[in-house]
């Protein structure tokens, strides 16, 4: 009898999982995504001119002509070109690995770069270094593409005319000759802690003592020395914190550094019912990935976070008997401070029980505040931490010894006073992202000579006298300090591609030294820091390891200056007033573009934002209730068209599409920065909207008082949240429970959803490899003597994904893209559902209905599940997708004829089809349409079949030579990095030579997604090896397999998420309960139904 599956019923709490408001409203657009593997019309050509019929005509004609001309009969002659002289260490075809480090504003992140024949192709975290332990983040992964960006700055120019290095050096000499004591010199740099840079700055300062040093980071922190003393860096100790309260601090997302993510997730690992998890409370205005992983979340507008902190401080002061703090709060509450608005309606129970929890774990709790919140709020939170006894325990400090610099506003003042004669701008892009009130563009024009080292031609270089290409970090010798203070090396992998200069080159020149040709500058610094006995041994070890052993600076004590801080808070604290029609605009860091510096990076443009699932654009995020108030119909907002809204502020206005963001605070509008670049390469052109003009020195993070109106226009957004939606199964794919549930029934996840409804699958047949008891035993030749026992190298590959650790950061997606030569397709193709990512991150919200303003969030990475009984394999007419004996569902590109049957039959919708020659033709080729969008967006001309073939050579250099670059008409999907598997097997066999011992050691290699993951949520390995991490995790009680009732027998196991709610908190009973239904306890069979004829 055929089973008819009734998809899961409502859970007891009424909560259900959903991806988009469109899904809740069951819009026709969503039905379209749900019911079809590819959306309606996805298989059709774009535009009216090239229809399918015309295309076939063209193809028929060209085939006939090809036959006539016999043009393709001769094989091309290929050449083998060996080196003239052998290159040290280089073995043709074998990759080399070098340590290096990537500069970020949070310190250098230690990396290992893979180079193939001199071309860096992939970035991994440095496994020897204690901070990343082999993992990386989204930006490090995609930085490799920046190196090969064909739109990089390539020429030295003077006043717009191309010139050469010698001319620049001569001009530089001229500038410095007249510099005198340096009173006319000014430097505008990016935040960077390189000791060599510090040393060179010191040398220059000696030579030109009056020179001005400014550092500008548009997303830099609001620092003040008042709480902890001068130049103290505060280091939260996540591994010691049991209860964490984050006040608008996205410490896993935009304020993350691999080290903090690792430290936090280490305290969230669940190995058994006795594991002690931390508890995370988050107060924020918009969903961030920190909010997504939290146990309790409160929506508060960013401008009211201070008010929340004040209410919190009052209760903490009372509970901890901190009289000074209590008095300060009272003083502020009494209205001593001007301009304070009404405290918004905050849930008193929320604060009360949260404080209780913090007090219970005093000394082991942690209150964090967003680094861009005003200094007064930061000082107040420092006082709260001090009252809770956390300072010196979960909060430690480190002295920052970098040379003091000034802020950009101070530099702007002396530029206004015409004191600056020569301005050096290294990196950055102040014309685009400096606070609007500085009017930087005109200021910069007023400086007689501006020398700019820039990575690409941008808004700032347009207005500079001299432009010099800036080197990528994989192109120069450098050094830096990692977030733990250890001294790391930056090694070049390749000579500067376009004759670029590094920052150190320029500073050395200004300091009167020679422009370095090798590591001599860094070696000098190394000698001073390491004081090595035997220089060359120490230097070689430094380069090999990537860091100087034992150079990490241990976090030390932190002292809180109570009196000064509380006075500061009393003086400065203010909460801006909000009203009914007065909105707050929050300038958020973009999870992909950061401050706009990655705008020309196609991988990052196309990665869906972890929360909004938006690609290629930014949008104004507003809550559903606010949207309704503004008159935006939310029911069908997940189609293609989004209403444009105009946001008016005193400083000006900006018009951009509204995105309705579940879980967003009311009256607040979040807009990611970094889009709408005016002067940018082909990838970034025409993407998103620039909101920097609304941002001023006094309100760098949020500004209150915006007026909003609908313009009546609509805009198309490339949103992927509904793509690859699965019929009725959303609630079955992600599973979660609470700590108490887990303790009472550790295998609760196994009986959730459909798995609770149906009896176990019983097969009449045994699976040739799965059910083979002799699989790991020793060989015997088969009866025919032909085939040898698979047990000789019995390996079976599998993967586990721990939903409890996954934050949804999407670093795995870019890692996969870099490793597997996955192309980008452009915004228009994304809107057609043709994005190519092999691994996607599904983001679900859970709530009762769309009126629930506080949905929970859960992220789930989903890749090919490598089903043992794979539905895709049985439908392929040409056997292009088959199973191998190691449990992989293998895709054979050269057999694939593109019927797409497999994709239609895949229950997970993880197969991707090359509709066009994404790898062979320029993604950005074609004409710009009226919106300035390049061909990819304009429709008719995109992927023009008759257009010139070929992409930039530099882009080809990034490709992984061990993975086939797929062509048009071929299906592809996750292979579990089969190239890495094969390489490991071959390495084992080569090492074995004439012995039979070639078993691959447990966990000796892993896939790209598992390697990058900072929380170790993805684990890959040999499931037949009992020693491997994956085989241990597969046995975990939390484990469940997707759609198990279909008997597809997946090789990927998911571990259910465990939330750790505080039972006293309001609404705690509904947290993590979207899957809790009546069949949580026992299995029972659904009513059998006769199939309808």
């Amino acid at each position, binding site marked *: 009898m055929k089973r008819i599956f009734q998809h899961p019923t409502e859970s007891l709490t009424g909560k259900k999982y959903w991806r988009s408001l469109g899904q809740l409203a069951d819009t026709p657009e969503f039905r379209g995504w749900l019911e079809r593997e590819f959306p309606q019309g996805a298989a059709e050509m774009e535009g009216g001119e090239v229809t399918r019929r015309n295309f076939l005509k063209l193809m028929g004609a060209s085939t006939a002509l090809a036959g006539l001309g016999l043009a393709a009969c001769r094989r091309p002659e290929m050449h083998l070109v*060996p080196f*003239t002289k052998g290159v040290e260490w280089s073995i043709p075809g074998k990759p080399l690995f070098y340590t290096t480090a990537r500069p970020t504003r949070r310190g250098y992140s230690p990396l290992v770069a893979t180079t193939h024949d001199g071309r860096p192709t992939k970035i991994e975290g440095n496994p020897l270094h204690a901070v990343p332990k082999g993992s990386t983040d989204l930006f490090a992964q995609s930085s490799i593409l920046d190196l090969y960006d064909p739109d990089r700055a390539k020429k030295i120019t003077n006043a717009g005319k191309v010139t050469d290095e010698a001319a620049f050096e001569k001009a530089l000499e001229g500038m410095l000759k007249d510099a005198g004591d340096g009173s006319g010199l000014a430097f505008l740099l990016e935040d960077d802690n390189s000791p060599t840079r510090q040393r060179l700055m010191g040398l220059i300062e000696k030579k030109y003592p009056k020179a001005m040093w400014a550092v500008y980071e548009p997303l830099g922190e609001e620092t003040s020395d008042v709480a902890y003393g001068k130049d103290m860096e505060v280091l939260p100790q996540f591994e010691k914190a049991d209860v964490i309260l984050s006040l608008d601090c996205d410490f896993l997302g935009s304020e993350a550094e691999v080290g903090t993510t690792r430290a936090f997730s280490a305290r969230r690992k669940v190995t058994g019912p006795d594991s002690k998890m931390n508890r995370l409370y988050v107060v924020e205005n918009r969903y961030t990935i920190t909010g997504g992983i939290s146990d309790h979340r409160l929506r508060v507008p960013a401008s009211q976070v201070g008010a929340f902190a004040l209410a919190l401080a009052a209760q903490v002061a009372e509970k901890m008997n901190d009289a000074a703090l209590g008095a300060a709060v009272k003083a502020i509450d009494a209205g001593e401070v001007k301009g304070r608005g009404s405290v918004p309606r905050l849930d008193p129970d929320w604060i009360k029980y949260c404080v209780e929890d913090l007090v219970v774990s005093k000394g082991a709790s942690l209150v964090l505040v967003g680094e861009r919140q005003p200094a007064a709020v930061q000082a107040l939170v420092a006082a709260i931490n001090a009252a809770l006894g956390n300072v010196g325990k979960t909060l430690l400090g480190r002295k920052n010894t970098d040379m003091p610099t000034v802020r950009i506003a101070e530099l702007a003042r002396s530029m206004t006073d015409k004191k600056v004669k020569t301005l050096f701008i290294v990196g950055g892009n102040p014309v685009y992202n400096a606070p609007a009130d500085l009017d930087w563009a005109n200021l910069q024009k007023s400086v007689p000579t501006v020398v700019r080292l820039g990575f690409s031609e941008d808004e700032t270089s347009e207005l500079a006298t001299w432009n010099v290409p800036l080197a990528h970090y994989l192109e120069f010798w450098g050094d830096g300090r990692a977030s733990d203070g250890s001294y790391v090396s930056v090694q070049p992998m390749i000579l500067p591609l376009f004759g670029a200069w590094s920052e150190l080159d320029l500073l050395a020149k200004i300091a009167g030294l020679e422009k370095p040709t090798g590591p001599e500058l860094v070696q000098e610094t190394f000698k001073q820091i390491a004081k090595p006995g035997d220089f060359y041994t120490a230097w070689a070890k430094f380069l090999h390891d990537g860091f100087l052993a034992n150079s990490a600076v241990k976090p030390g004590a932190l002292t809180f200056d109570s009196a000064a801080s509380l006075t500061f808070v009393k003086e400065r604290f203010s909460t801006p007033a909000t009203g009914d029609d007065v909105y707050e605009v929050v300038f958020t860091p973009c999870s992909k573009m950061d401050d706009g510096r990655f705008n020309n990076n196609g991988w990052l443009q196309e990665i869906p934002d972890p929360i909004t699932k938006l690609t290629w654009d930014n949008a104004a995020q507003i809550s559903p209730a606010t949207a309704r108030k503004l008159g935006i119909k939310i029911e069908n907002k997940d189609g293609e068209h989004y209403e444009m809204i105009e946001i008016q502020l005193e400083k000006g206005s900006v018009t951009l599409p509204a995105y309705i963001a579940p879980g967003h605070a009311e009256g607040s509008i979040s807009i990611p920065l970094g889009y709408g670049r005016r002067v940018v390469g082909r990838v970034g052109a025409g993407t998103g909207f620039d909101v920097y003009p609304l941002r001023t020195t006094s309100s760098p993070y949020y500004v209150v008082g915006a007026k909003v109106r609908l313009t009546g226009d609509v805009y198309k957004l490339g949103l992927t949240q509904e793509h690859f939606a699965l019929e009725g199964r959303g609630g079955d794919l992600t599973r979660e429970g609470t700590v108490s549930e887990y303790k009472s029934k550790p295998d609760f996840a196994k009986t959730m959803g459909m798995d609770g409804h149906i009896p176990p699958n019983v097969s009449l047949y045994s699976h040739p490899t799965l059910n083979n008891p002799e699989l790991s035993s020793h060989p015997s030749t088969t009866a025919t003597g032909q*085939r*040898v026992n698979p047990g000789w190298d019995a390996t079976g590959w599998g993967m586990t994904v721990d939903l409890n650790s996954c934050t949804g950061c999407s670093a795995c997606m870019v890692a996969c893209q870099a490793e597997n030569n996955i192309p980008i397709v452009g915004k228009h193709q994304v809107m057609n559902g043709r994005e190519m990512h092999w691994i996607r991150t599904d983001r679900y919200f859970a709530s009762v209905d769309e009126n629930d303003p506080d949905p929970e969030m859960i992220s789930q990475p989903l890749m090919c599940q490598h089903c043992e009984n794979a539905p895709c394999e049985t439908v392929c007419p040409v056997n292009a997708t088959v199973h191998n004996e190691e449990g*992989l569902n293998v895709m*054979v590109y*050269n057999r694939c004829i593109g019927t797409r049957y497999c994709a239609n039959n895949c229950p997970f919708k993880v197969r991707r089809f090359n509709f066009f020659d994404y790898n062979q033709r320029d993604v950005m080729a074609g004409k710009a349409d009226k919106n300035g969008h390049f061909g990819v967006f304009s429709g008719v001309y995109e992927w023009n079949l008759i257009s010139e073939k070929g992409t930039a050579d530099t882009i080809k250099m990034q490709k992984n030579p061990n993975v*086939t670059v797929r062509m048009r008409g071929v299906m592809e999907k996750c292979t579990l990095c089969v190239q890495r598997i094969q390489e490991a097997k071959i390495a084992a066999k080569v090492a074995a030579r*004439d012995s039979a011992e070639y078993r691959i050691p447990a966990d000796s290699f892993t896939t790209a997604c598992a390697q990058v993951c900072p929380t170790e949520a993805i684990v890959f390995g040999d499931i037949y090896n009992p020693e491997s991490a994956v085989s241990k995790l597969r046995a975990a009680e939390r484990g469940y397999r997707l759609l198990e009732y279909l008997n597809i027998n997946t090789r990927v196991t998911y571990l259910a998420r465990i939330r750790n709610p505080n039972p006293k908190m309001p609404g705690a009973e509904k947290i993590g309960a979207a899957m809790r239904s009546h069949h949580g306890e026992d299995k029972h069979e659904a009513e059998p139904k006769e199939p309808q004829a």
Partner: protein
Amino acid sequence: MANIFPRSSNILPIKLVIILFVVSNALTVGAWYYFTPKYTRVGYQPAQPIPFPHDVHVGQLGMDCRYCHSFVEVAAHSNIPTTQVCMNCHSQIQKDNPKLAPLRESWKTGQPMEWIQIHKTSDFVFFNHSAHVNRGVSCVSCHGKVNEMAVVYHAKPHSMDWCLDCHRDPAGALRPLNEITNLNWQPEQEDPKAFIAKYGKPPGSENRDFSSSKERLTQEDIGSTLRDKWHINPPDKNCAGCHR
């Protein structure tokens, strides 16, 4: 009675004959080309910039393959020697030979030699030399007797079917590891007693008497012994073994 068939159908038989002729010719020509070794490049022997004589270097002078193809045991690629390697000897021997002018030119200018590629696998095939030569497959199995070639040519078909012949039954190509680069090695030369002492008796040879000098080892004997001894298990059904 009116004609059942229109007048134009009179020429239908002629049309059919012509079509049949064209189609059958096309099929013949197609099969001629694609089913013969020509398609698999067997015999392809392009003129190289220097007519490097393998027969002199290997056959007469007895150089080992790995002197020039030095990374064949460690890498997927078997490298073509650098100009520097050639110049190790040719800076002293035959240093005025006009045929070596391109080599001296390359050494002087630093511009690499451009040899014409003879053996080429498709881009979607990931062949690994080290996996073969370290596990008992000789160079000769795929490249033929290069030691006897005055100018190298494509000796074997290198089609997928040809690869699979061996992957399905590796016994036909395995030999002791010290004989990998000995292109003249014959299984009959192998001393049965020494071989059996080292690797054990060939499977299914219980009734054979290897103490007699007449009883020689065959390739099947040696191959199947080594296959079982070393657990040679090449990917045969696993597409991902070569296609990634």
